[in-house]
């Protein structure tokens, strides 16, 4: 069948199993949109900004595990996607971004709405393509999806000139991909895994340090099995808070800059650190030379560059997390007696951790006069279903959510960890709700972050995506204000938002429901009402203004040197 380039793109998307795309039309993608007009198999959601389209595709990918797809036009449309792409890149989220490009004869001429997208996105994509010839189009789309979802996943950009969209060719979708420079290692080396089992069996104070890789290879169940078998405590990074049930007795919560006292102490004191799909980010390690300095380190990761990038490793295992965890658990199961000895030998270690936990539990001082942001999060946790999907923006509210929400199911916590993108939460919630229309989807936000993509209220209302938005409103850029309070003599330079926004009117202007309160006793009622109200609802809580996120490890300090809640 002879098809145009834009028709080939749409047929290829269908063959890749894409049923939802997020995007924004423009001159250089008008042909694609013309064909989308009739393509009933693909549901297109029109956001109000291209950045939001990419975050929405990202949210969709994070909660489904599928490849998220976004479309934008050339020039400004394409450059607007960059923050979204960089966000996905830092958190290894599988995505394909299609951007229009000026016709090939005009490329390089500073044509209207021209931007060198392959140049601009080279450092923030896993790979990118400029399709200069329609003969390469079908193969390129096939490769883009393959690269996005395999190995360590990531965003792939396909830049599609307008004349290639218009050109015609017999459509044939390749059956397989052959990239001689790209052969990710999935299977963990058995000998290395046997060594890991031996190291685990010899440990007195082991800790599992778990990152976003567990989500990406859908290995939560395998992780739980390993932890249950060996009784090794589990600390999770921000990316992995939902990858291990936070109410499990072995759960230590988050580690690092705003980690729990007991997680940070456990890592500092452990004699074996088993890093699984985590990358020793600076927000996790604090001062690097004191991080887990008493421990031998096992590092499991699918990406060889993650290993020995920041810390020395005693035993590297390159492979898919699930594959490695299954093999490791199998090996240990075969050594049942030694495992029993291990569980006995590590009982004192778990007791020590329990003492730490008792001494400094995750807590905050509840008041009756002002709403504490942590209280709102606790109430929200009580009143939502276990499978509710929570997204956040970036800042204090994000850390409180990680600390207090106690996630229980994988892929229910979507947050920008690596890049730390304010404005991520609302559009990613939109994407998650499009993926799961029946589930509760809640964006926990601050009043600063919310205003970075608040235009997406329009998208929620247009498509009747019933996302609930919870704003923890302190009228500050709270996280920066906290740093200014603690390290800059309370000089609140440009962090006071001054203008109190009427968020109810804002919600209503878009046709959404707005609710708000400043009273502690009304919090529960507002949440109940907000969750019950059909359609998108914005709940604004005016919270205690100068509440801080604690514990906190000051920048440059070791993670056991925490400022604790009094």
């Amino acid at each position: 069948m002879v098809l145009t380039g834009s028709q080939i793109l749409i047929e290829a998307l269908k063959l890749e199993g894409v049923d939802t795309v997020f995007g924004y039309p423009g001159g250089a993608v008008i042909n694609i949109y013309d064909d989308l007009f009739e393509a009933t198999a693909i549901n297109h959601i029109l956001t109000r900004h291209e950045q939001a389209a990419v975050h929405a595709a990202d949210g969709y990918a994070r909660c489904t595990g599928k490849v998220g797809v976004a479309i934008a036009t050339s020039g400004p449309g394409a450059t607007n996607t960059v923050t979204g792409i960089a966000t996905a890149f830092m958190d290894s989220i599988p995505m394909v971004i299609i951007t229009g490009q000026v016709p090939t004869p005009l490329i390089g001429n500073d044509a209207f709405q021209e931007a060198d997208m392959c140049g601009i996105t080279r450092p923030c994509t896993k790979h990118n393509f400029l399709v200069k010839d329609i003969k390469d189009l079908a193969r390129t789309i096939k490769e883009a999806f393959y690269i996005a979802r395999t190995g360590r996943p990531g965003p792939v950009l396909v830049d599609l000139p307008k004349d290639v969209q218009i050109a015609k060719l017999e459509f044939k979708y390749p059956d397989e991909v052959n990239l001689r420079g790209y052969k990710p290692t999935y299977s963990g080396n058995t000998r290395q895994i046997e060594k890991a089992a031996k190291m685990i069996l010899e440990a007195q104070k082991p800790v599992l340090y778990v990152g976003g890789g567990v989500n990406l290879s859908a290995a939560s169940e395998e992780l739980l099995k390993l932890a249950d078998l060996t009784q090794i405590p589990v600390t999770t990074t921000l990316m992995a808070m939902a990858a291990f049930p936070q109410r499990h007795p072995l759960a230590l919560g988050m580690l690092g800059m705003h980690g729990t006292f007991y997680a940070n102490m456990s890592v500092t004191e452990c004699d074996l650190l088993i890093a699984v799909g985590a990358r020793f980010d600076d927000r996790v390690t604090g001062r690097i030379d004191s991080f887990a300095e008493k421990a031998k380190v096992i590092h499991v990761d699918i990406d060889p560059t993650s290993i020995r990038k920041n810390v020395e490793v005693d035993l590297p295992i390159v492979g898919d997390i699930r594959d490695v965890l299954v093999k490791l658990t199998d090996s240990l199961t075969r050594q049942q007696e030694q495992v029993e000895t291990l569980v006995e030998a590590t009982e004192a270690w778990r007791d020590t951790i329990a003492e730490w936990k008792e001494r400094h539990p995750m807590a905050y001082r509840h008041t009756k006069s002002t709403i504490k942001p942590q209280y709102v999060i606790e109430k929200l946790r009580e009143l939502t279903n276990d499978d509710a999907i929570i997204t956040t923006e970036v800042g204090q509210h994000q850390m409180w959510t990680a600390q207090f929400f106690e996630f229980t199911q994988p892929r229910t916590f979507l947050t920008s960890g690596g890049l730390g993108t304010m404005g991520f939460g609302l559009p990613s919630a939109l994407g998650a709700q499009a993926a799961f229309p029946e589930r509760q989807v809640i964006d926990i936000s601050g009043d600063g972050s919310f205003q970075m993509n608040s235009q997406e209220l329009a998208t929620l209302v247009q498509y009747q995506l019933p996302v609930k938005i919870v704003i923890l409103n302190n009228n500050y850029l709270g996280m920066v204000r906290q740093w200014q309070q603690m390290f800059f003599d309370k000089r609140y330079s440009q962090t006071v938002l001054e203008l109190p926004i009427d968020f109810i009117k804002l919600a209503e202007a878009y046709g959404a429901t707005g609710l708000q309160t400043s009273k502690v006793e009304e919090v529960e009622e507002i949440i109940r009402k907000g969750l019950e109200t059909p359609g998108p609802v914005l709940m604004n809580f005016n919270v205690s203004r100068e509440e801080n996120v604690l514990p906190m490890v000051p920048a440059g300090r070791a993670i056991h040197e925490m400022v604790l809640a009094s």
Partner: protein
Amino acid sequence: MKHTISVLVENEFGVLARISGLFSGRGFNIESLSVAPTHDPDISRMTIVTRGDDRILEQVTKQLNKLISTIKVVDFTDEEFVERELALIKVTAEAESRAEALRIVDIFRAKVVDVTPKTYTIEITGAPRKIDGILELLRPMGIKEVVRSGPVAIGRGAKRDWTA
């Protein structure tokens, strides 16, 4: 420590930018880089000279391997290899220094490829150290311009550095 790395890449649009962008983006040092197609026109070979300790070199190698367009990375440092660089040197050669310049050219088995009444342009190939050597001897006469290609390298012996 100095390392000579050979990188086999897909001979396609933008590959050089991917490689050089990787070095600049991650703060890796790049001393020289040369690139041209191999006998297989679909594959180009880059020779990169870089500096760094073992940990940095491990990252450089891994990051290069991670690029989708990279087919193979060979760090020659622990292997036997032949390394050659080409240089073109325009040197002042007037009256008393003309004969001396030719003597130096002869000793280094270089060639004069362009002559004017006031200058010689000298072509020399060899290991980078040899080129450093001739430059040192020519410097007193007045070097007007130097163009160096950066080294290219290949493993010694019968085996290939790579097979597609």
